[in-house]
């Protein structure tokens, strides 16, 4: 691909862990890759390395055939032709919305002004052109920051936790809009997030980040279904993870380090339920019940291990109480077998 982003570099901060990402992010038009990982794992640093805002101590970064950074050369952020949307958007407080969008561009250029107004229309910012950023809502600020980054037709767009500054209700609508916008604009995008819920909707690809490294990278559906390591399974919030050393309630294949499955895929039935082909049944005693929004999370004890199941509150029958016996079942295809390393 012409503009694949090839990163293999290192940086270290005082008293911090070493950040050493190694990955090739797809530069296909409109393709979005999420850098997903816990806070402090180095996601933002990787994004800043890619953008040229943080200097690597060694290694190289290439965009297609263009060298952005290696031992001898460093292409500064000004010359990379990228768009960067900061977590708090970093709009210039003393400049109007239109001024922010056209910053450092020739604002007498009619083609550019037309492009700016087209973006303002597309993003629903009509009537706000002459306002200062302080007079905008969080969602509007995000859209101004996007317009400002996109009007330059950047080769890559980098978004640092674009939802973090928004409240929960705004987030849901903005997420869908953002996705549609990115696909329409056809700019490859790298987006940092620590919200598991955002992944499936926002990203075509996921790069899992732990301790400054990319530990798994692939298409979203594949990564969500098949974690490559126990750490990856934990990051992807698999509730049930059993390494081969644990006393797993389920059979663990010989050539794997363990298994993982999601609580939503676990069904809960009465103890005397007949077995079905393709499903694994595990008799348990219910130990704990927690309500979490529309979900009810049950913990079942089988031998010495605990298994988590999640059902909707509608399916929460009266007999499912702590102390009662039940039968958990899961489709074999929903159990991810985690391969041995290397």
């Amino acid at each position, binding site marked *: 691909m012409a503009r694949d982003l090839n990163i293999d570099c290192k940086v270290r901060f005082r008293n911090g862990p070493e950040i050493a990402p190694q990955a090739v992010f797809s530069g296909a038009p409109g393709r979005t890759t999420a850098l997903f990982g816990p806070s402090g794992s180095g996601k933002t640093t990787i994004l800043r390395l890619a*953008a040229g*805002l943080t200097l690597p101590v060694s290694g190289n970064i290439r965009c297609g055939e263009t060298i952005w950074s290696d031992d001898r050369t460093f292409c*500064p*952020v*000004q010359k990379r*032709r*990228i*768009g*960067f949307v*900061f977590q*708090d958007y*970093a*709009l*210039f*407080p*003393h400049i109007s919305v239109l001024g922010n969008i056209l*910053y*450092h561009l020739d604002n007498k250029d009619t083609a550019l002004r037309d492009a700016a107004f087209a973006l303002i229309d597309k993003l629903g910012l009509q009537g706000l052109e002459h306002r*200062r*950023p*302080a007079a905008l809502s969080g969602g509007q600020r995000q859209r101004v920051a996007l317009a*400002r*980054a996109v009007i*330059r037709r950047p080769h890559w767009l980098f978004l640092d936790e674009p939802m973090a500054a928004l409240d929960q209700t705004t987030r849901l609508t903005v997420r869908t809009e953002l996705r549609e916008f990115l696909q329409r604009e056809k700019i490859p995008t790298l987006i940092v997030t620590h919200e598991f819920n955002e992944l499936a909707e926002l990203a075509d690809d996921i790069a899992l980040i732990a301790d400054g490294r990319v530990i798994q990278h692939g298409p979203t559906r594949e990564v969500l279904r098949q974690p490559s390591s126990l750490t990856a399974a934990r990051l992807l919030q698999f509730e049930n993870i059993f390494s081969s050393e644990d006393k797993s309630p389920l059979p663990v294949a010989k050539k794997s380090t363990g298994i993982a499955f999601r609580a939503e895929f676990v069904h809960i039935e009465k103890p005397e339920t007949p077995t079905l082909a393709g499903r694994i049944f595990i008799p348990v005693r219910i130990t704990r019940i927690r309500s979490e929004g529309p979900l009810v999370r049950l913990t079942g004890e089988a031998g010495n291990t605990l298994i988590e199941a999640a059902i909707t509150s509608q399916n929460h029958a009266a007999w499912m109480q702590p102390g009662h016996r039940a039968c958990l079942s899961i489709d074999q295809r929903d159990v991810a077998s985690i391969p041995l390393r290397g």
Partner: protein
Amino acid sequence: MIDWESIALTARLAAVTSVILLVLGLPLAWWLARTRWRGAVLVEAVVALPLVLPPTVLGFYVLLMLGSNSPLGQFYEGVTGTLLPFSFRGLVVASVIFSLPFAVQPFLAGFRAIDPRLLEASYSLGSGRFHTFFWIGLPLAWPGLLAGCVLSFAHTLGEFGVALMVGGNIAGVTRTVSISIYDSVQAMDYATAGWTSAILLVTSFTILAVTFTLQRKFVSTWPGT
């Protein structure tokens, strides 16, 4: 008899000093605010020295530095045929050095208060260092820039020790307001000393009050930065 000549001279000196400090101090403060070089703290300490040194000590060194025995003094003499000490230009050089922290420290505070993300955002939009300095740095730091100009102006108005050491007491050339007041008191002319002091007091107070009002008014229009 109020010494209007020395008042005019002092105003001229303060204005020239402020303008020079704006030109020299802005890049210096911008560099100090941005650099990651560890030695920068030493530069900062040198800039702040006039705050703690007695004016006589500072004046003494400036006199040596500008005098006809120093390379700088000889160079100046060679170029212009005149000497710097006991001249208005010499007084300007001394004032600039003496008021340096009063300009650079507020400038620096103004630049440091800018969210570094805004500068990075500017760079990411293709803007270079100069463009970013003029379009983001200066407008966002301007309360600090105003404070620096005003403080260096007001501080120069009232300086005494350095002016006496470097400028001497030549009427119309280097006699500043504070020296004139000292002369009046020495001559037991308390009425003149009182009037001149009052003019200096009221002027300084007015300048500071107007500055602080402006700062409050403008700073409050950029919330949430």
